[in-house]
């Protein structure tokens, strides 16, 4: 089995997407949490922003991250010809 350049490109695009999504995950969780008393204590529709993020906002972001990853990767599989069932 020999990997082609196309395969390597698929993998590196996967890694790039993984890194970007992980960075978003990190910011909404840990950066907002760290600065909860400072930068993110402003009022947001009645909630202190950091509280709202912890209780609702970050959850929405997590769901969207996973939804986007699934959609993007399933398309990427097709684009690079590594989707299941293509050669079987």
């Amino acid at each position: 089995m020999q990997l082609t350049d196309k395969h390597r490109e698929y993998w590196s695009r996967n890694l790039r997407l993984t890194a970007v999504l992980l960075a978003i995950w990190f910011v909404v969780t840990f950066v907002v949490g760290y600065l909860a008393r400072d930068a993110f204590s402003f009022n947001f529709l009645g909630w202190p922003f950091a509280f709202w993020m912890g209780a609702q906002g970050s959850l929405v972001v997590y769901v969207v991250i996973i939804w986007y990853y699934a959609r993007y990767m399933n398309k990427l599989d097709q684009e690079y010809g590594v989707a299941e069932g293509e050669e079987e």
Partner: protein
Amino acid sequence: MSGATSQKAFTAQLKKIYTWYTGGFVFFVIALTILEMMGMPRQWIGYVFLIATVLLYAGIGVMSRTSDASEYYVAGRRVPAVFNGMATGADWMSAASFIGMAGTLYLQGYSGLAFIMGWTGGYVLVALFLAPYLRKFGQFTIPDFLGARYGGNLARFVGVLIAILCSFVYVVAQIYGVGLITARLTGLSFEVGVFVGLAGILVCSFLGGMKAVTWTQVAQYIILIIAYMIPVVWLSVKHTGIPLPQLVYGSVLQKVTAREAELIDAKTPAGAKEAEVRKIFADRASSAEAKLKGLPGSYDTEKASLQKAVDDAKAANAAPEVVAAAQKSLDGYPKDAKAAEAAWKKDAAVKARANAPLRHAEAFPAKDDKARDIARKNFLALIFCLMVGTAALPHILMRYYTTPSVKEARSSVFWSLFFIFLLYFTAPALAVLVKFDVYTLLVGSEFAKLPAWVASWSKVDPSLLSIVDVNKDGIVQLAEIAIGGDIVVLATPEIAGLPYVISGLVAAGGLAAALSTADGLLLTIANALSHDLYYKMINPNASTATRVGVSKALLLVVALLAAYVASLKVADILFLVSAAFSLAAAGFFPALVLGIFWKRTTGIAAVLGMIAGTVVTFYYMATTQPWMRSVFGVTSPVADNMWWDIAPISAGVFGVPLGFAIIIIVSLITPAPKREVQELVEHVRYPNLRGDTMNTTSN
């Protein structure tokens, strides 16, 4: 293509079945409501819920019985993404999520949000790092992957040990929860409750393994989510007029915050009353502390002074009730110094109630900046451990082996989190709504006119709710209310003014949550023993029937053992559950992720990393957590053993980085893995690789 067509038909069939099922369940609840109005006694409603739901789960188990290995271990790998999502949701949400979560938020405010974020954000890690790759690998257990990737039985064996360690403590807690809920629902004793629940768990996983567990978990998810939503929506309508609690509770939170400020400020009339009650508690605690310090001498002096009070009263010819009161305190005096010590310790513990109430929305409340900093550090560390632990618990990862394809595995993580999200997104709203009710309607009301739910719950279980008129003014003060977290979910139907049927429904939902998680965990343990230990390491020639048979036998043994441990009511069960996350995180996460993302990772490095991560996590807990310290006889002061003030529950923050570091360093100084192993890594990275002849999927 016939496979795809039959899968489509299968999915359509499932949708039909579960739509009918949901309709049937709603009809069942409505019918019970009508019966209640016609005068059906409450106890019967409890029994009907218990029997009906347990029979239902058993029925699904009987219908899905199987002895085929692939069906038994991974439900035949044909569970569609949406249904696997629901099953994972039920598998994931335990009694702690269903009943405990909103209560934790009620008691801890912002700090409790660590659980909300930790137990949802971990799925991001599952989606990005594990689920699609494990599905491509496609075997039966997590130790399977470790064994194949790290070349041999050593890695597999270490995996089996860690899987059992973290799953067993977790399953004990679930069975404990089953016992509590069954007891509450029906009035049976706790021990009977444990074994009734156990029967419900066993019929299902015993007969049909993963297949039966999956279809039961879908059914359980539907019950638990309906049970959670109805009371919250009703309560939201009561307080805001809008049935979307998650979107509108911000305004309620503002009212709660304003009320907190009033109660904390001793200059307002209500605040002054609060301060008065808190002072009584503070005085009681400090006098108990003084007596404790004076032991053993203080035992006799106290007794003498009580005796003297009686004598004085008699000598002064005081009114008979005064003499009687003095005699009563003397009679109630502890029999010996040891009993006195226990009683005074209990009195000293009321010190906690002398503190001002916390502000719900305030992040990291503490007395000074240093303490705030420690609170923040621990908040973030706990989130980290819960998230990484989520992405390392074998009973969750195993679920992604059951989807038909890598593509479906990815979508399935999305559906899993979506279904979990529905409950977690709602819990913070529920906590605030109940707090509003307590702070504004209960506090300030008269003792003579307590709401019905208060009276009934304080009678059922004083540890959940007890209200005593400490300062004898006839008015309820916040400081006079001692509340246990679990009541928030359990009493919401009554607080919202719903019929008793809904209370039964909530208990049935809690039961579904505990049973479904217990099922998944028991299966993980039994599979680790039967598949990994017996089949892969001891007897590789075992026939399919023998393997499944051994697994079923082990399931029974493990379940009975777990029930036995649960019936001992081991202390600190909540700590043990959280400990499972730290242990799983440190044991599995580095080895799994590096195994997929870094071809250079070697077998010996992974084994050492897993051991080091687990050991350091365990060591930290054993030296800093009170119950673990007593088990292991650790006597050195806790403060000396603490590293950077991290609480024992978050010990994984040390284990995870250490695991990564050791795996990376040892990998670099050991020879690179063999060609076949590197090809295995490439194999799992691509859903379908041209010219790849490797086939790791087990059927």
